[in-house]
């Protein structure tokens, strides 16, 4: 007997089958390999030695095998710097996107669609090409310095490129669309009669923003923050091009371990650490947004 419940489950299996299979083979598989690798000893000339070796993590966290690999606080410093740059990227993209979302949400439909198209326009060109244009702008003889010197604001070229600032600028440039879309979605949904009601009940513009507009658009801000923070933390293209050799981020470090140092276990351990941080952040996000949506009447 094929009950409706059974048929529904069969349908679901058919629909979800391909994606499950794909993720299992191309995501869970490599992930398992990486977890195993991160606990193996590095081979002398690359590859791995099949022995239990937790000291890859020790090198980062402070319990290293002093004979072979040493603990170096530089890794934690790079970790913290990457967190800082990712956080500043989130903040900067938010400061750019939030006001813009309000402006665009109040335009007529035609202009709205045009502006949304403009936001996605950068995706039509290669990321690498776009970042190299920033190199041309920021280098000592680049456009930015020429303008600054030409207008007499500075007398000697500034160090613009290969700084934290250059990386953040590049990151903001890359991640603005990722922040804009979720923020815009929640701003667009905002019911302006609620703002009117708040003003009508005696709340001034600032209080109305803090008590009404901000809480009601918070889900979009949180969504945008997660979507920007996670790839920003692991990004290695932007620091590689705009940070040069001076500024190292986690993404570069991991890339180096795999490609230049040929130390796969240590690279895997670093990657696992990044993933742990991201999972913790995602977990917090899910818990917080889940509680906001909790309805005591229905229990959902």
């Amino acid at each position, binding site marked *: 007997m094929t009950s409706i419940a059974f048929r529904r489950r069969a349908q679901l299996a058919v629909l979800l089958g391909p994606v499950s299979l794909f993720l299992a083979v191309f995501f869970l598989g490599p992930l398992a390999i990486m977890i195993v690798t991160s606990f193996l000893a590095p081979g002398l000339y690359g590859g791995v030695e099949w022995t239990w070796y937790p000291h890859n993590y020790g090198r980062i966290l402070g319990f290293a095998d002093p004979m072979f690999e040493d603990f170096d606080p530089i890794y934690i410093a790079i970790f913290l710097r990457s967190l800082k740059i990712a956080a500043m990227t989130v903040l900067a993209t938010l400061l750019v996107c939030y006001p813009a979302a309000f402006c665009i949400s109040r335009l007529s439909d035609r202009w709205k669609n045009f502006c949304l198209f403009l936001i996605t326009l950068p995706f039509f060109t290669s990321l690498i090409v776009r970042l190299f244009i920033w190199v041309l702008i920021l280098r000592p003889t680049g456009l930015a310095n020429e303008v600054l010197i030409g207008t007499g604001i500075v007398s000697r070229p500034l160090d613009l490129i290969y700084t934290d600032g250059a990386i953040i600028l590049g990151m903001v440039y890359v991640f603005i669309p990722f922040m804009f879309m979720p923020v815009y979605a929640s701003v667009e949904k905002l019911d302006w009669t*609620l703002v009117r*009601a708040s003003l009508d009940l005696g709340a001034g513009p600032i209080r109305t923003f803090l008590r009404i507009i901000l809480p*009601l658009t918070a889900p979009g801000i949180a969504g945008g923050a997660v979507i920007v923070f996670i790839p920003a933390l692991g990004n290695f293209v932007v620091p590689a091009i705009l940070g040069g050799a001076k500024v190292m981020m986690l993404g570069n470090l991991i890339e180096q371990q795999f490609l230049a140092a040929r130390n796969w276990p240590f690279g895997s351990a670093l990657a696992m650490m990044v993933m742990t941080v991201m999972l913790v952040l995602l977990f917090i996000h899910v818990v917080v947004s889940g509680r906001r949506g909790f309805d005591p009447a229905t229990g959902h």
Partner: protein
Amino acid sequence: MRDSIVRLEKAAKAFATPEGQTVTALDAIDLDVSRNEFLTLLGPSGCGKTTLLQAISGFVQLDGGHILIDGEDMTDRPPYRRPVNTVFQNYALFPHMTVGENTGYALEVAGVAKAERTKRVGDALRMVGLEGMEGRKPRQLSGGQQQRVALARAIIARPKLLLLDEPLSALDKNLRQSMQIELKTLQHELGISFIFVTHDQQEALTMSDRVAVLSGGRIQQLDTPRAIYDQPKNSFVATFVGASNLFEGEAGSGQLVTKDGLSISHGRQGATGAATALIRPEQFFIAQSGDSAPGLDVDLEQIVFVGSTFELFGRTVTGRRVIAEIPAMRRSLVGEIEQSRRARLAYDPAAVHLLPAEAA
């Protein structure tokens, strides 16, 4: 002179349409609302009633004129500094706050201490029949309950004036009628002036002390519900409020003759010149043989039973449409004319109202 709580002096507002035209929403409106008065702004959509309400609450900046609330000039004050609160059409409850937080918002903003706030929130909710609902979220309430929260939230800070922007339009008919009576009672208890906006003439007549009928950005007539209904000043008011039969023609003493030759008797002796006679449908009765009252002979096109009355749709010999309302208790008479499809609709000349002729 009456004690005025709101005064509008030559309030004017025009909007530019996207097509580049200007629409006059308020055409130099003068209006006085008394303390403790229930005033209704009645009119079709686009007549300026909502603009007028928003001008008082501060969401529309006037192009000209002044608004005084309790003697103070409010023309340039932002909404959050006016002693006026609004009940919005779609309730506009804050979805992320509980019923208690919604209700107490105006007090919280005004810096009232938590203990007093809690007490006053309880009082306000009791007043609208939602005792003990403080902890609920707005989306857990029915439409009628949300409406009550919006009301409690708007009255809690004791505004000098409460504005209601078609607050009952989203409710079903039975609930709307009971809310009409509750609102009226509440207004009496609070002693606050209410300005109520609606396009529903029944609602306006039921609840108001005075009704302002608006059209084209102007107040067509401002009067008690009875005066609006019985003595409308022009044909717009006559047709917008209630059903009406209008007969344009030349008035003479006790008679009005229309262009198509109908003669309507009226009670006004000295009347002369062009005028329009108004006969409400319920003023007609079916003439029986021997009745001496004046009347109109009509061919009946349709007879509709609506419960308490029959509605008769007929045409005079000259082809003019006439509507009459006959109480359902006269059903034997209606039965007779249903057979013949003809009737003589009689009326009392004293009940005929004469409108001055209007410039076309």
